[in-house]
């Protein structure tokens, strides 16, 4: 569990007192796989227009919480509301961006075909409408990929693939954007451009971003949710003690690697 002076537990009473519209309300969620408890009494809420980062060690329950918010998993206990509905009802209003690494790199599909999947629920008689194609092209343009429309997914760089997946989420015209480690597989040299695109989106919608990268947290987050079975919310910037406590061991190296990149040491970079 993370202990911090800036940490603040969000409980149900706090949530219900709020007058501003909420995008996500999670109250007392516990989830178990067999005998192991992955999430325990997790409560928090996210306001409309907020940009929140979620961090925590591997196996800490981030992915489980994400799947619960998407309605792909029913929590063992507790209540979840997304845009005032159950996650399953609200999932079409959520733009979900998974990690690009989990896709078959040989699958024969173009960037535009992937982005059009964001409009899959609008397919009529086996065809996408002209509006669907226009929206998909605009989503690609928003992510700076207009010239990659017809390029196969396999031939795109890691950063481009991740942006295609964000464009696919945007094509659904979502109110909430959920991103699962969007910078995990992209090179540091293109990360800044990538984060600029996300900053642009931050003005338009609510964002929940799962990451291991503390620089991304500081750049993108209004505050940060730390998940390690239980959940704590921290305001930013994080104190060095909190950082050490959150990322004991290996994860700190990622932070150092990125700092070195910013200082001009590119020995650890693989340029795209």
């Amino acid at each position, binding site marked *: 569990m993370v202990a911090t002076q800036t940490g603040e537990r969000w409980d149900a009473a706090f949530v219900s007192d709020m007058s501003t519209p909420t995008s996500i309300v999670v109250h007392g969620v516990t989830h178990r796989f067999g005998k192991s408890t992955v999430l325990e009494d997790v409560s928090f809420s996210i306001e409309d227009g907020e940009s929140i980062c979620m961090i925590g060690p591997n196996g800490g329950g981030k992915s489980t919480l994400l799947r619960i918010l*998407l*309605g*792909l998993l029913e929590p063992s206990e507790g209540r979840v509301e997304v845009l005032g509905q159950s996650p399953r009802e609200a*999932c*079409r209003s*959520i733009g*979900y961006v*998974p990690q690009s690494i989990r*896709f*078959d790199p*040989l*699958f*024969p*599909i*173009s960037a535009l*075909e*992937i982005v*059009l*999947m*964001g409009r*899959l*629920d609008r*397919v009529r*008689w*086996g*065809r*996408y409408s002209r509006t669907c194609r226009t929206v998909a092209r605009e989503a690609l343009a928003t992510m700076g990929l207009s010239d990659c429309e017809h390029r*196969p997914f*396999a*031939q795109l760089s890691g950063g481009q693939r991740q942006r295609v997946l964000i464009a*696919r989420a945007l094509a*659904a015209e979502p109110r909430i954007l959920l991103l699962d480690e969007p910078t995990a597989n992209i090179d540091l040299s293109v990360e800044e451009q990538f984060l600029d695109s996300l900053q642009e989106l931050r003005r338009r919608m609510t964002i929940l971003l799962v990451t291991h990268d503390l620089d991304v947290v500081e750049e993108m987050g209004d505050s940060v949710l730390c998940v390690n079975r239980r959940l704590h919310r921290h305001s930013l910037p994080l104190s060095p003690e909190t950082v050490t406590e959150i990322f004991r061991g290996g994860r700190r190296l990622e932070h150092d690697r990125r700092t070195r990149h910013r200082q001009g040491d590119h020995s650890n970079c693989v340029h795209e």
Partner: protein
Amino acid sequence: MTEFFDALRQVPLLRYALFAGIFSSLAFGVVGSFVVTRRIGYIAAAIAHSILGGIGIAIFLSRTFEIPWITPMGGAFVAAVVSALIIGLVSLRAKEREDTIIGAIWAFGMAVGLIFIHFSPGPGVAMESFIFGNILLTSANDVITTALLSGVVLVVTAFSYHKLVAVCFDEEFARLRGIRSELYYLLLLVLLAVSIVLLVRLTGIILSIALIVLPAATGARLSMRLWVIMILATLLCLSYTVTGLAASFVLEMPTGPVIVVIAAAVYALVLGWQKLRPQS
């Protein structure tokens, strides 16, 4: 080769085989492309082998109870669809390892077929003709059935194309967009089952697997667009069946194996050419 074209005019059986090959190629090119890109060639193999169970049961029932409308091809169709649904449902719902259920269906289907054929009254059943194909068994009715089933496969695929692609590429995202992705995965397996049944007469249940996989695999080496792969696979499948039929007639060899050898040779050539050509 002229003797082949002369024979086509004179021998109806050869014409039936040719038309059955042409019609089934249309379904094979389209469904095979999904099979190769979704990497479910092993499911095609399991469905193909389980067909023997349906053929055995159909022969047993029609001979024992003298029911003429129960045909081996009808049994093959039912067995293929049932196997596809079992494999799909078990892997989606029962959390059982997919390879385990595939292996079980594969062997169980063949075993059931052999047992029922053993107990079937009447003359012995030429199992070889079902396993490796026999164009002499192709009838005008088979051609009509093949054309109809191919048409159904093509129409269903045309209307479900985008959803099938989405389910093959990212099943979870399709589900989040409100698509019943489990249903579309099962639909894909049923389309695969129907396609396999189409070629039982021509290449047999085992060799039909090659015609599902090889033309699409060759197409996938030549293009990174699924619809282009489908067109290439259909054209390749068509040319394999026609040239295979002609070559086997001229060289007096069994048709199914000749078709499969041609398909494998072209795949190997394309693969070799791509590996050996100088990189630009």
